[in-house]
């Protein structure tokens, strides 16, 4: 009985639309970063903005991440609401001091007297053979450090809604978007990277995970690409009589414990899958939360699948070997179900 017209937007267009809506609404919102002007963002996150808002509010920067992210902090402290883009998350190391010692800590160090209403958006993810310095997600690197909200939406709908929430939030938000979920014409076309997105502004909370598939036998927690793979794997598992509940984490920090714990209390089994490195990663945090809080609900040991602790290799068979995929999720969840 769906009567509303479908507006199919790709992930990048959903993001760009969110930013545009907020720029219209609030003159203090502006965008800065490398190639976010005429180019529209290497991953399309700012497509069309310079045409709409001009070069005064859509600022192409030099390759000076420390300066322009630091400048975003300084401008935010003066009441502006900058949306800065770090082109690839992999480049964080040239500007992490600004991100972490300043953006994330100034609100706290000032006892709440300085607010930094800013968004730092950045592209994450591999799978297209861009090798060790352009393929990481680094979810846990940012999740580990207090003072930032860290989000990683998985769908065009959430990209738009969470971007609007992020811009309106008075706290610094690190907004990770996955390259493969932008729906770009020059990458592999994934069905999940385009969907109906309402025209108007709407918000999606920055601290809530989402059950994207219900099931009673096992809980699979993932984020971004791994969520989508998990859903695919779950469909295959269903054919073997295993009903997996799939949780899209969405928020890396703060992490939504409740949604995870409720699910595990129901399913009694936990599988966590992550595109990031394994050690000290998201799979560890989720597993530890569950082990600590609902230990007695578990009927089998929790299982983790993530990038093994190696840099991301270039060559296709090597990259395919390290990044988790549907097959491996399927097999390992099956093995988990065979436990006990």
């Amino acid at each position, binding site marked *: 009985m769906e009567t509303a017209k479908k507006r199919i937007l790709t992930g990048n267009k959903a993001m760009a639309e969110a930013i545009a809506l907020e720029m219209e609404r609030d003159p203090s919102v502006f965008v800065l970063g490398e190639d976010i002007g005429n180019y529209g963002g290497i991953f399309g996150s700012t497509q069309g903005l310079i045409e709409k808002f001009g070069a005064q509010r859509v600022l192409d*920067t030099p390759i000076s991440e420390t300066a322009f992210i630091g400048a975003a902090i*300084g401008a935010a402290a003066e009441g502006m609401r900058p949306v800065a883009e770090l082109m690839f998350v992999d480049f964080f190391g040239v500007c992490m001091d600004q991100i972490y010692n300043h953006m994330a800590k100034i609100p706290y160090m000032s*006892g709440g007297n300085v607010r930094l209403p800013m968004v730092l958006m950045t592209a994450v993810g591999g799978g297209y053979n861009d090798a060790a310095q352009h393929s990481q997600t680094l979810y846990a690197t940012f999740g580990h450090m207090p003072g930032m909200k860290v989000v990683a939406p998985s769908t065009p709908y959430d990209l738009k809604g969470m971007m609007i929430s992020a811009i309106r939030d008075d706290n610094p938000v690190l907004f990770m978007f996955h390259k493969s979920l932008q729906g770009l014409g020059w990458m592999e076309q994934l069905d999940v990277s385009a969907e109906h997105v309402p025209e108007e502004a709407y918000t999606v909370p920055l601290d809530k995970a989402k059950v994207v598939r219900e099931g009673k036998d096992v809980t699979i927690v993932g984020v971004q690409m791994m969520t989508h793979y998990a859903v695919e794997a779950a469909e295959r598992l269903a054919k073997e009589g295993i009903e997996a509940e799939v949780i899209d984490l969405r928020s890396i920090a703060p992490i939504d414990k409740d949604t995870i714990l409720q699910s595990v209390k129901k399913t009694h089994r936990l599988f966590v899958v992550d595109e990031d490195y394994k050690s000290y990663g998201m799979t560890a945090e989720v597993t530890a939360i569950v082990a600590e809080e609902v230990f007695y609900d578990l009927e089998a040991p929790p299982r983790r699948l993530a990038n093994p602790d190696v840099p991301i290799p270039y060559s296709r068979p090597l990259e395919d070997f390290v990044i988790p995929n549907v097959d491996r999720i399927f097999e390992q969840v099956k093995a988990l179900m065979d436990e006990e």
Partner: protein
Amino acid sequence: MATFEEKQPAVSMEKLKWMYEQMVKSRYYEDQMVEVYTEGKAPVFNIGAGPVPGEMHLSTGQEPAAVGICVHLTKDDTVTAPHRPHHHAIAKGVDLKKMTAEIFGKETGLGKGKGGHMHLFDPDVKFSCGGIVAAGIPHAAGAALASKMQGRDWVAVAFIGEGAANAGAFHESLNLAALWNLPLIVVVEDNSYGISVPKASSTAVASNDLRAAAYGISGAYVKGNDPIAMYKASEEAVARARAGQGPTIIEIETHRYLGHFQGDPELYRDKAEVPGLRQLDPILKLRNMLLEAEQVSEKEIEKIEKQAKKKVDEAYQFARDSKYPEPESALKDVFTS
């Protein structure tokens, strides 16, 4: 007036008195801090003990850099300072009581005790500082950008040490500010040392105003720790910035009378160096100059001094009298809701 090189400074007596007052206040503030910091740290020095623990970087001797430019600023202009921030904070008009309470870790402090001496934030006068070398320059550039985007004539001043001018943030921020023609002034306080490392071992060029050439902007060099010369160089730079004519680098020769931090054994430095420097003290010089100008009486000067010291004493008393924050409040202020 013969003590400073500029014979006829076009500086109003009012401004001179203001600068003198701030310098006295700043100096006295640090003198008191030397004492307070030692409390609880004898007979054995322990950095974590006493009413004021942690690192302590004092600015004794460096007052001219701060007052010579802040005299041109208003509440609406932004100042970012580094790890050695008290003189800048005082010259920018930071609430002295709250600042001192913060340094004592009290709940009445600027940051409710969460920040400490290197992390003072007073948004009312747009002052901030931080413990990471050179990191405040981009923040000042951002404030300058905000001013420009909002169509204001507000300027932003980033204070840094000469050691900090070799950090990448210096280059990136000045290029950005020059490119975007931002009202940014970077003041480099050359106190000859970055902790123990002399300038000649850190800096490939004689002074950092020369680096203005790398950005096509203006540079100025202030010799002899001279507040009047600093006043003049800053007057030009601030006017340029307000007029939308872009950034300036000002380097000032100044002197760090104390160790890098309190407790620094200073084995890298000739013991005779500081006593020599103190003989040419800029506060003494300005005092003599004011008297010689004969527009200020000894009595008036004493009144200025007394008033400055009184404010400092009150601030310390306020800090001592204030309460520590509740331990659980450590969990607050990460996010606002």
